[in-house]
């Protein structure tokens, strides 16, 4: 048994061991007394000092502080409620927004080596076209000539009518090259994904269903593989179902290979270099960066205007580029989320200032209590810790309320964010969000608790002398409160202007 476990043992059996220690010391005293020596000292203090050796003194004091703080807060329900409500609103807003920021901006893509996934784009900067799609011929060129890409797959979205023998329904269809799902590194939930043989002219048309579509329309039927549907006057056989992962770049109901899409397999589409309809996703080779990838694809693109002058106007400045998939999916929403997070941070600051003000006002009435405790031997540090424990307890209460509020308004926020990114579906109150809320609550408690805790009089004894109805107004206390009020007004004003401007630009 190591020292660590022994400490845990002492913690768990604290009351029994305290009793044992007291028995030992009582016997010791008795034997001393038999010799007429009585220099044992203060037994309570000695027992306390001995227990220090167990290494749990801090925990004992923390619990003691927490119990006391809890009693005090229960005795002042009005103050407690107002403080928890104010902090709850502030922490709730921050929790909700952080869950957005985490789910959309920070969390890695749920795909194998998601940071190596890129989206290619072609640009004609001189005619203002920043994101032109790719034609079949171009895709073949990039696939053959690129040195930085391990894999390159095409994608476009169509809307087809699907006949399953009951009712015709319109399905969002992703048309992809054979190894699109392998590119993302996902594995079939049921059946299999496309193979090379599914994407050659003359192959039988096959479908992969999205997990959601399969659940909603076929009740999660485990025998779905092999079912035959009619689409575009052809029989399509279901070969697999996607796992429940978010779909990029868009949600689709079903996926088919390029040969099954009538417009993609038309002769025009296959031969015309300027039929830019497809999007291209790729995976960088290990060691390649987005930067080296851009150099690579722009080199390939630079050869096109010379080889095919008809398809690429000389003065359009044609070239190709790429972005990481993660950046591409979140670029629209990033500034909005960060602004909102900043604003909610300021709201929390206002809440802190408000509660600090309340606490300061209450401190004036509690001075005598603190003076008595100081007179009984509590050090200044201990009193500060007591007050910080109280404020932290309050802010943890606020954190709980905030978590509740955040979970209530999450759907609203998700539908807002969904207007800008497909990652919105990945937002949830996850472990990192819970940790964030806990950290934020503790920080909040310390921030708003600091003002009352450190504004204590250096000499508390004076307040004992002031008698019970001390009407003396403290100048320095007032200064702190004035500063807090000024800060609140300033931040509120800033938020108000910001909100006014944002209403114009957001909606």
């Amino acid at each position, binding site marked *: 048994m190591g020292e660590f476990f*022994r400490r845990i043992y002492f913690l768990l059996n604290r009351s029994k061991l305290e009793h044992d220690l007291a028995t030992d010391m009582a016997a010791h005293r008795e034997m001393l007394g038999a010799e007429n020596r009585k220099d044992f000292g203060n037994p309570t203090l000695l027992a306390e000092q*001995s227990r220090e050796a167990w290494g749990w003194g801090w925990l004992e004091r923390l619990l003691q502080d927490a119990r006391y703080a809890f009693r005090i807060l229960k005795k002042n329900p009005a103050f407690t409620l107002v403080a928890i409500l104010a902090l709850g609103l502030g922490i709730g807003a921050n929790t909700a927004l952080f869950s957005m920021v985490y789910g959309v901006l920070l969390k890695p893509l749920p795909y194998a080596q998601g940071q190596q996934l890129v989206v290619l784009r072609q640009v004609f900067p001189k005619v203002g076209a920043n994101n032109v799609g790719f034609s079949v011929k171009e895709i073949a060129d990039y696939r053959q000539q690129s040195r930085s890409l391990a894999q390159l797959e095409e994608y476009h979205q169509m809307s087809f009518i699907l006949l399953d023998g009951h009712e015709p329904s319109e399905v969002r269809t992703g048309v992809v090259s054979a190894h699109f799902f392998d590119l993302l590194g996902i594995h079939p939930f049921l059946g299999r994904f496309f193979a090379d043989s599914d994407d050659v002219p003359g192959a039988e048309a096959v479908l992969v269903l999205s997990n959601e579509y399969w659940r909603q329309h076929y009740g999660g039927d485990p025998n779905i593989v092999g079912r035959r549907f009619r689409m575009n006057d052809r029989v399509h056989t279901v070969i697999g179902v996607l796992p429940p992962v978010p779909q990029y770049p868009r949600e689709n109901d079903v996926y088919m290979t390029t040969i099954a899409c009538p417009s993609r397999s038309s002769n025009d589409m296959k031969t015309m270099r300027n039929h830019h309809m497809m999007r291209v996703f790729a995976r960088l080779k290990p060691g390649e960066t987005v930067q080296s990838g851009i150099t690579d694809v722009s080199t390939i693109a630079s050869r096109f205007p010379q080889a095919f002058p008809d398809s690429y106007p000389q003065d359009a400045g044609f070239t190709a580029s790429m972005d990481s998939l993660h950046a591409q999916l979140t670029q629209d929403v990033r500034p909005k989320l960060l602004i909102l997070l900043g604003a909610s941070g300021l709201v929390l600051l206002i809440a802190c200032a408000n509660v600090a003000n309340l606490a300061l006002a209450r401190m004036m009435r509690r001075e005598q209590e603190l003076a008595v405790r100081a007179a009984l031997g509590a050090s200044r540090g201990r009193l500060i810790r007591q007050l910080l424990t109280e404020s932290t307890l309050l802010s943890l209460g606020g954190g709980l309320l905030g978590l509740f509020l955040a979970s209530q308004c999450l759907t609203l926020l998700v539908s807002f964010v969904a207007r800008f990114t497909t990652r919105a579906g990945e937002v949830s109150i996850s472990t990192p969000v819970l940790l964030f809320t806990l950290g934020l609550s503790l920080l909040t408690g310390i921030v708003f608790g600091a003002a009352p805790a450190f504004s204590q009089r250096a000499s508390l004894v004076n307040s004992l002398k002031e008698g019970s109805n001390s009407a003396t107004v403290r100048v320095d206390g007032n200064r702190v409160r004035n500063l807090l009020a000024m800060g609140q007004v300033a931040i509120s004003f800033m938020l108000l202007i910001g909100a006014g401007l944002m209403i114009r630009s957001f909606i």
Partner: protein
Amino acid sequence: MAKNEMIPGTLGMLVLRVLQPGALHGYAIAQRIHTLSNDLLQVEEGSLYPALQRMLIKGWVQAEWGVSETNRKVRFYKLTAAGRKQLQSEMTDFDRVLQGIQAVLSKA
């Protein structure tokens, strides 16, 4: 107070040493140190019990219930294998330091 103060850091070693022959309760430990030192050293109870708790945590001693000479239920502290090793190393260290001090005192 004419009490002879312990050299800081040596109490633990003395406690371990008097426990080497066999288990003792708290009061007996203090007594034994007092007697063996020809009444020179006085163990303060305020240091003895924190030290014993520390040794329990470190695993150098174990406590067992027994009955004292005054017929009282009390815990006897017993040296463990780890305690014996600790005592050896503390005594070796102390010897070295003592030799150093004596060398300085005699030569300077």
